[in-house]
């Protein structure tokens, strides 16, 4: 009986401790989110009164070829970021984990691009991609095909070029996170695998990957969510062009809110982005409930 009372007191105490942050969270996240949901159901211009129009904004979004193209581009982004940076980062982290001396210097070198602002990186790569003065000019002069035209100026290459730049800044961060996870895998497991005759590839497949799976899955989930929220690199490097080829939901939202005075439509686009992020989280929660070790 006494123990029950104590437990209840501890619970109340815990609630009291988290109450301030809970209130702050409600004020800064929950209330604006609810307001956002309301405005997505109105024709609000961003100022003044708003008229309730039901689901019209959502209907308009999914009937707009421009938004559908943006959505498709977000999915392309997701496919790119779910594969390319993970392949590079995992390989780099695994190789780095085998390095006995100077590993720290490598880690710093990988990580540095991540701390640079997107505006700086985007502007720098725009210069590098310049077909008349940048590296692409040199490659073109060397006779390498595909570099005679501006990579950011063609609908067929612009999105991939921006994804390449974003990946350039991102994979080092991912590699560092995965390396930390790798270091928590017991060396005895590798030793046992080696005794059993496992080669490097088999050690990676049967020791490394299972050992870092929770980190890997968590980063995969976060990368997927970020793929639906991408904005800075696209905005700095192409503003969604040319011909909408790099438009993503966030740039579409920005234009709707700030260029067209359609804040209601922008709110609907924002909630759609959140919905996709929510679906990803939902999938991971379901998998976890089904016993996946993630």
């Amino acid at each position, binding site marked *: 009986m006494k123990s029950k009372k104590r437990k209840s007191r501890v619970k109340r105490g815990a609630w009291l401790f988290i109450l301030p942050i809970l209130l702050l969270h409600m004020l800064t996240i929950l209330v604006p989110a609810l307001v956002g949901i309301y405005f997505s159901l109105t024709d609000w211009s*961003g*100022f003044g009164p708003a008229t309730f129009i039901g689901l019209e904004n959502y209907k308009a979004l999914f009937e707009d070829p421009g938004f559908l193209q943006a959505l498709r581009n977000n999915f392309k982004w997701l496919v790119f970021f779910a594969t390319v940076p993970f392949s590079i980062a995992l390989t780099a982290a695994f190789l780095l984990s085998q390095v006995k001396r100077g590993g720290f210097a490598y880690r710093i070198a990988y990580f540095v691009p991540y701390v640079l602002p997107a505006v700086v990186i985007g502007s720098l790569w*725009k210069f590098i991609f310049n077909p008349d003065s940048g590296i692409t000019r040199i490659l073109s002069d060397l006779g390498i095909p595909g570099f005679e035209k501006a990579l950011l100026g063609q609908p067929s290459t612009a999105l991939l070029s921006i994804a390449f730049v974003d990946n350039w800044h991102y994979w080092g961060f991912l590699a560092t996170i995965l390396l930390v996870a790798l270091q928590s895998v017991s060396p005895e497991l590798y030793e046992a695998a080696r005794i059993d005759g496992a080669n490097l590839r088999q050690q990676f497949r049967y020791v490394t990957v299972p050992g870092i799976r929770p980190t890997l899955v968590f980063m995969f989930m976060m990368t997927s969510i970020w793929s639906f929220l991408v904005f800075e690199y696209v905005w700095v490097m192409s503003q969604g*062009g040319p011909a909408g*080829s790099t438009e993503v939901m966030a740039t579409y939202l920005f234009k709707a809110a700030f260029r067209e*005075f359609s804040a209601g439509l922008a709110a609907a686009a924002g909630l759609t982005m959140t919905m996709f992020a929510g679906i990803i989280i939902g999938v991971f929660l379901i998998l976890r409930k089904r016993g996946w070790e993630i």
Partner: protein
Amino acid sequence: MQIKKNAIRVGTGLAMAGMLALQIMFAPGASSATGKVTVWLEENSTSTCFADVLTSANKNSGLSFAMTAKPQLTEAMRTALASGGAPDVIFTPGPAFTSEFAKAGLLEPLDSYAKEFGWNKSISPWNLALGKVKNKLYSLGSEQETMLLWYNKTVLDKLGVKVPKTTKEFSAALDKVAAAGVTPFAGGNTEWKPVNEWFLSAMWNAVAGPDNVYKALTGKMKWDSAPFVEATNTLNGWMTKGYMSGGLDRYYTRTFQEFQADHANGKAAFSMEGSWRFQNIGTQFKESGQEWGWAPFPTKDGKELYSIGVGSSWGLNKASKNKAGAAEFLKTLFTPTTQANLVMKCGMSPAPVQIAKKMLAGQEKRHADSIVRLGQAAAKGNFGYLTWAFWPPKTQNFLIEEIEKVWAGSVTTKQYLQGIDKVFAGELASKSVPPIPSRG
């Protein structure tokens, strides 16, 4: 004796103070408004000069103008207005923005100030019409602009190409320039996507004709009518032939500095740009040692036409605690003297106010000539309509974004213009189209 001396001192002091007060009251530009007036300016190459001119024009008043240059001003102003933290004077990139702010009740009507300061006489009627929402004046357009044809005279002389007056001559000139291995146009939109609308503005007025543009803007003609199809297709032909900066891929990646240098260095013969180019064209061509010139944009019938618009718009914050002071700022800004100084000292385009020719004495001849000719054309009603001044925001954004799909071949001209029609019809119904001044 001492009392008498003191009385004389006090009397003299009072008299001097009175004279000083009278001097301040009746000094040019003086007013009864006092205190500080906050103003945000777009951060660009002219913002410091602009602030200096306004500060100098205001030196005799009891007011102080606190002008701050801000990057991304449009977004900052929107957010500040919505949250109640905006400055006393509201600056926007054009009437489409100010009319949205006015509709939301965030701006103070200017009608009483217009009467008091005589703006109805000193400012062009079309500019006053442009600033009205529900018959009330909310904003004054500044930086009167027009689209011009800029040419590298050295290149044209060398190639034996005459400055075109008609669209037909223009096309022939471009073909001749391209055949000689020179890029016909310098251009690029990597820094400012709305560069796309410069060309559409120019071509719709020059080829479809300003009367048809007027009809379309007032809902009496469809945007997908034959004249607009022809105008858009003429532009598309040039763009897809690679006449702009050597190809669409270059156009989408060239900066202002790069393409203007191409023009000044003779890599490109022409440039379709607005009258704001006067700000730097002289310096650029001086550096390259080549000669430049401008001409009215070639039209289908060869008649001289200037499409007009304003590059910025000024209003008054309804929540301002110093409305009288903010109105004084507008009064100071829209005097012919201030506008002439902005032209002479900063190279800016003047607001549509009557500037006497002598005020522009000493100004670069070609620039002064353009101001006079544009002013005369506007006064006679011989003008066209620039998209960034007269088009409502959704249609404007649509025409900027979607034209690239036409150039990429994923959308036809007809589909593009039908799309404009649909968006425009919605905005016309919701009264988002600014008042369109009639011609002639």
